[in-house]
């Protein structure tokens, strides 16, 4: 019973605290909202100053106070404005941190990226470095950050390296972030793609490198496809017959993305691949190329056992203009029910045919 009373007293005290806390929150809520509004105004004012500096209306020395009082705010705002206004603004904003009054911020961030025990801190620094310091200063620590034990830090470092187009980082990125089992392939491809056309030659060289990782090759091929790089076509075609299924799939997709008819024949041949994912990617790419020579291969794809191959073949036929559409209409007399159904579906999806009735299952 004493124990009961003890706990009861404890609970009553706790409850009292909650009531007091509630009253406190209610009373201070208006003040908190005012402070929030004031912080917002401060942020807006700093933003205006930064924009004024970019317009040449404010001298860089005006930011030395902000660097002391509003350090995280300044870095965050600089990054945001640089993202909004583009590369030339980024370069000009970096100059703020090169002046005597604010240079210590850069040193502080450079120390954090290598020495901070908090991975979030290292990640944050890896993200913001491109906005506060020049390339020659930040590339070495960012390359070292690609070795960080935490994947998210490596990822942020890779993003920053791609932002500043540090092509020397391409191979390390392909090696360190080619982790398809742990890390989604798409993210690394996006990073490589962000490098822009400067990265093309390095990625082409990587594809010919004997020790290149197959996963790294997949990433490079996809990024070359997204870059629409015609000079990569011969090299990608040679990989279309690779023993690695993932490489073949990404080759087929990349050839479609590049969009040159030069790849049509190789893609038609790959329509006989043993893996349906490769055949589906080829069918899709042939539609992107609008390769009329692929018509018989696509018609044959209408009867493929895999739904996606049938669908992509039909969809690509519809992309070929009248000849393709006629082929789809002729498919209504096809012996294969699946070929008939998929042709009808694609024509209906494009509003080229009105359904009779019922659902074909």
């Amino acid at each position, binding site marked *: 019973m004493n124990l009961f009373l003890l*706990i009861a007293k404890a609970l009553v005290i706790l409850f009292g605290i909650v009531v007091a806390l509630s009253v406190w*929150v209610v009373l201070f*809520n208006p003040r908190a909202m005012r402070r929030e509004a004031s912080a917002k105004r401060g942020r807006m004012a700093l933003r205006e100053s930064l924009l004024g500096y970019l317009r040449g209306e404010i001298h860089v020395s005006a930011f030395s106070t902000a660097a002391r009082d509003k350090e995280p705010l300044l870095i*965050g705002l600089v990054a945001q404005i640089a*993202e909004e206004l583009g590369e030339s603004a980024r370069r000009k904003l970096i100059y703020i941190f090169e002046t005597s009054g604010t240079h210590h911020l850069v040193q502080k961030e450079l120390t954090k990226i290598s020495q901070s025990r908090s991975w979030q801190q290292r990640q944050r620094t890896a993200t913001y470095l491109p906005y506060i310091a020049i390339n020659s200063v930040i590339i070495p620590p960012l390359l070292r950050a690609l070795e960080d034990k935490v994947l998210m830090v490596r990822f942020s470092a890779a993003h920053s390296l791609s932002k500043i187009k540090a092509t020397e980082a391409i191979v390390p990125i392909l090696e360190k972030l080619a982790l398809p089992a742990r890390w989604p392939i798409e993210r690394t491809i996006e990073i490589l793609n962000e490098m822009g056309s400067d990265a093309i030659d390095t990625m082409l060289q990587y594809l010919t490198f004997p020790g290149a990782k197959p996963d790294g090759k997949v990433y490079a091929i996809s990024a070359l496809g997204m870059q629409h790089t015609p000079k990569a076509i011969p090299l990608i075609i040679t990989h279309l017959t690779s023993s690695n299924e993932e490489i073949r799939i990404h080759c087929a997709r990349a050839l479609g993305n590049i969009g040159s008819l030069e790849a049509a024949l190789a893609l038609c041949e790959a329509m006989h691949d043993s893996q349906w994912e490769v055949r589906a990617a080829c069918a899709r790419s042939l539609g992107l190329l609008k390769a009329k020579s692929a018509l018989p291969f696509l018609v044959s794809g209408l009867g493929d056992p895999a739904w996606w191959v049938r669908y992509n073949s039909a969809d690509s036929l519809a992309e070929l203009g009248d000849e393709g559409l006629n082929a789809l209409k002729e498919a209504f007399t096809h012996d294969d029910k*699946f070929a008939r159904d998929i042709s*009808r579906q694609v024509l209906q999806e494009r509003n080229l045919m009105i359904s009779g009735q019922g659902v074909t299952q």
Partner: protein
Amino acid sequence: MNADMMVVLNIIITLIFIYYVVMHGIYFLLILIGAFGQKRYHQGIQFHEFKRISESSLTPPVSIVIAAYNEEKVIVNTVRNVLQLHYPQFEVIVVNDGSEDNTVQLLIDYFKMKPIDKVFKKHFETKPVRAVYQSANHPNLIVVDKENGHRADANNAGVDYARYPIIAQIDADCLLEQDALIYMIRPFIYNRKVIAATGIVRPANGVEIDNSCKIVKRDPPEKWLPLFQYVEYLRAFQWSRIGLSSINSMLSMSGAFTFIRKEVYFALGGANIDSVCDDFELTVSLHRYIHEHKKKGAIMEIAFVPDPGCYTQVPETLKAFWSQRNWWQRAILQSLWWNRDMAFNPRYGMAGMFAVPFFFIFEVISALVELLAYIIAIVVLVFRIDTPSLLMLQFIFGFLLGTLVSVCAVLLQATTRMRQEKTGTLIRLLLAGFLENFGYHQFHIYSRLTGIYDLLFKGKIAYGYRERTTYKTQDEKEGTASPPDDFPYGRDLV
């Protein structure tokens, strides 16, 4: 009453007391873990991350499946809200589950739907599909009109028609934030192990939409019954679920807002059509699937996204509230019974060792324990038994602990960026936290008890009574909305 009886009574009261302390203690801890979980989540978001996701051509496309049964009051604006989502590539599949009202006709007329012969690989046995339509204005909108078979059956039919690798299941009364898909896809993008995800669901009763059906105001409800539920959603569906998710024990992905990889949905055999409520059963099955594949080396996770992305209508009348809570209780009880082999089974990790027993002991049994407490109170009062201090303590504990958890949930909310701007609203929420123990809580317990009875003794599966309120855009409120030409229903049903 003799001494032996008094001893028994005292033991029962003591056990009930311990039960309440443990239950509320765990909830309190979960809320705290949830608060840290949310902080971690926000710290993990990278600069310009959501912008990259929204602009990348490599962002995985999503199939949104909306099961609809007699939803004529909300369906058009729900679909309009979903169609304006900010996301690179998605399709919307509305499955009309044999509605007896104008649901399907409204969709056909408003969105200019035309019949289409869709070819697909059938994975699930569902009630027959009568027709499939595709919108002439929105090629990414499909309506599957099928015979009635409950939500699980409708969801399975919708997934059968889905084209993309990630399935998003939402309810027909849900409104989504414009960036909801971007928030929800993030865990799938950054973590290969994530096979399913859910997020914060909040009451839509105080939500306002603009003329394009985009959410523009997110106030708590005006009426008290939905307001009590708002506090409950904060406590149970927000903080507690983040906490449960942090320890891999979240057994209930809301059916109003569930994301799942299609291949996993197929591997599970889809939603269980025999279940009272498919979402709870689906989540428990997912945990089972995850742990049964763990030994084979496949590591999988269910993610919880602590960003409010979805708003759903909560009942505004006692009848509708009773029906909903009765249904939820039946769903939990049925699913836990079906999966009882997971309880205290180390093979199922935290789901088996903590989540399943926790849900059974504190989500199913608590209604019965509370009933027992009230019965004892009546016995003590009627027979004038000399244990008033003990009894009083028991009730005070129940009240204090419940209030403590609710008020803390509201207070925690005030520390986040989702805080209430108006002090008046904050006061109302805190008051709701204090007052919910006087009437609302007891009626909730009654609904749950009848749910247990209905499942055990009547085998009731169907949802029961439900109400919907039309979402009105600004123009519709002012009476100046103009539905599309040849839309025959006037403005009321848009």
